[in-house]
């Protein structure tokens, strides 16, 4: 048995407690997520799979006529609220140990631990047979480059961390190859720069200064944390913060 209800940014499934339903629901959710152009739905799918498995196996004890309900609500851009409920007796969710085990063979037994590590936040109802999970879909940072008069403006679409190092490196090398000398980094969308990201700013300025003498770097729209970071590392001597 499977019933589906869909409205605007909300989708709900109610289905019988059969293991074969897991893949069926996952398939439905995948095609639903396509509407939101989510390039990497790994987090959401992984979380759902664990939760549905748990609901069927542990919650409803595989009793076919007990119903599992799953709903997904889009909160804002790429963020979802997922609620999974079963008709079981619930469990003592306060006793869960969320610490990730170092032993990889233990992972199967630690489904909720995995869910926790991929979710932003999780909540249970009092009985422990309904879980609410808030999750953000994975997203990699894009680097938008635009020439305004004689200044090359680089605008990252998100944080600059080790994961985004390669595209960032590629973009700045490309700019230097093209002989650009005036750079402005618009950090409007950047909340966080890690040490690898910061290293790239240093490597970039070193490279550029070796190549051209009249080089100029500016940072605009940076938040206070990032300004502090540039000041603490004295990068503000190289990058003018506006």
């Amino acid at each position: 048995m499977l019933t589906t209800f869909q409205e605007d940014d909300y989708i709900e499934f109610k289905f019988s407690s059969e293991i074969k339903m897991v893949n069926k629901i996952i398939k439905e959710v995948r095609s639903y997520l396509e509407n939101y152009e989510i390039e990497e739905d790994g987090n959401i799918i992984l979380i759902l799979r664990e939760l549905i498995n748990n609901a069927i196996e542990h919650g409803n004890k595989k009793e076919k006529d007990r119903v599992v309900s799953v709903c997904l609500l889009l909160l804002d851009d790429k963020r979802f609220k997922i609620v999974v409920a079963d008709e079981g007796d619930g469990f003592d969710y306060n006793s869960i140990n969320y610490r990730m085990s170092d032993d990889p063979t233990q992972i199967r037994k630690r489904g909720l631990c995995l869910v926790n590590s991929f979710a932003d936040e999780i909540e249970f109802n009092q009985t422990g047979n309904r879980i609410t999970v808030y999750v953000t879909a994975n997203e990699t940072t894009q680097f938008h480059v635009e020439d305004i008069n004689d200044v090359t403006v680089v605008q990252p679409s998100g944080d600059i961390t080790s994961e985004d190092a390669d595209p960032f490196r590629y973009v700045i090398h490309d700019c230097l190859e093209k002989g650009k000398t005036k750079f402005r980094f618009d950090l409007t969308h950047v909340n966080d720069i890690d040490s690898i990201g910061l290293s790239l700013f240093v490597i970039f300025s070193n490279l550029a200064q070796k190549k051209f003498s009249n080089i100029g770097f500016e940072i605009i729209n940076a938040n206070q944390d990032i300004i502090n970071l540039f000041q603490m590392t004295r990068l503000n001597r190289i990058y003018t913060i506006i």
Partner: protein
Amino acid sequence: MQKHILIAEDDLAMQTSLSFILEDEGFVVTTVSTGKAAFEKIQSSFHNDQMFDLLITDIQMPELNGLQLIKSISQAGIILPVIVITGYGDKQTLIELIRLGCDGFLPKPFEPVDVCQKIQEVFQKCDELKAQEEKKFADLIKQNIDLAREIDSYKHSFYALRKELNNAIITYNDLICLNKNGYKVPIAYHIQALKDLGGDFVDIRDTEKGCDIIIADVAGHDMAASYHTVMIKSFFDENCRTQKTGETFFQLLNHALLENGKNERMVTSLFLRVDLDNYHVSAVSAAHPQMIYYNDKDQTLHQVNIAGNFLGLLTDVFFETKSFFVHPKDRFIFYSDGIPNAYQINGVSGKKISLTSSGLFDLLKKNIHLPIDNMLTSVWEKIEKFTRYKQTDDMMLFALEIP
């Protein structure tokens, strides 16, 4: 082997003459008079693995006509060459037959020689197709073998590499591993690395008058990062022996990291020298998160701000030295940027909330009355809980107490 041909034809005269012609040519012939009978024969021969080599069928037949018969065969997933006997003015049927992939047509009326020629054509076409298929299959098998061999060799190198890496990880961890006890000053610490390699580094060495301590954070989590760490460690060891000042040590270390590192890495670090003879401490920082000093007499905590560049990327660097006198029971707390940057995300709003250094400061304030070990464990547990047990960076917290 003799080829077996099935003739489906309701006109008995035509059926008889066709079978004479074909038997004369040395074929084995089976005849049926309806489409339905033909389909049943084909099905049973298919299941008995004694498939006909060819079907010659009329269009107009009772119980399943020629067209329906051909459709049924293809729907059943049976491959069988078909020659259709066509009459005058069956243009529409002809088009339909071509669409169905019929192999040949025999327009009525025909001579024996026409029949034999058509059959030879169809068999030749089939043989060619079969040869092509066989070649394709043989090529695929060969490709398959090559791929399997390639995978085997990848697997082999992967296992070799994995083993090498595991050894590197073990050696690295042995190299940077720190004993909890046995130094002139009591210490407590907790390090949680995000990955197997790289990460935060802390080391302590007893010196004649007290001890030297280093904290370092190399950017990245790969083997290259761990080489940098090993280099920092060996420079630290050497410096403990030569007892150069912290400032000189960092200048030398920066130079060495730049000289040897084609692979530029940003390193932040803190160096602390404890002189227990004079109860004097001096500290140097390379853009590392600022340490916290606990004055036991006033029961106050202070962030110690020390100016300095990071290591490993710039040639022209400077480091300030901060010195002060301390008393027994005073404490120093160091941490890596993973601690103030530790965060949780509010599920409803999606807002990221970081612990920040002031958050850490508050946690320390609440637990400073505990013995150093318990203080550290308690603060660590609260940080873990704050992050909801999700680790996003290396985290290190280290404390020492003046004896």
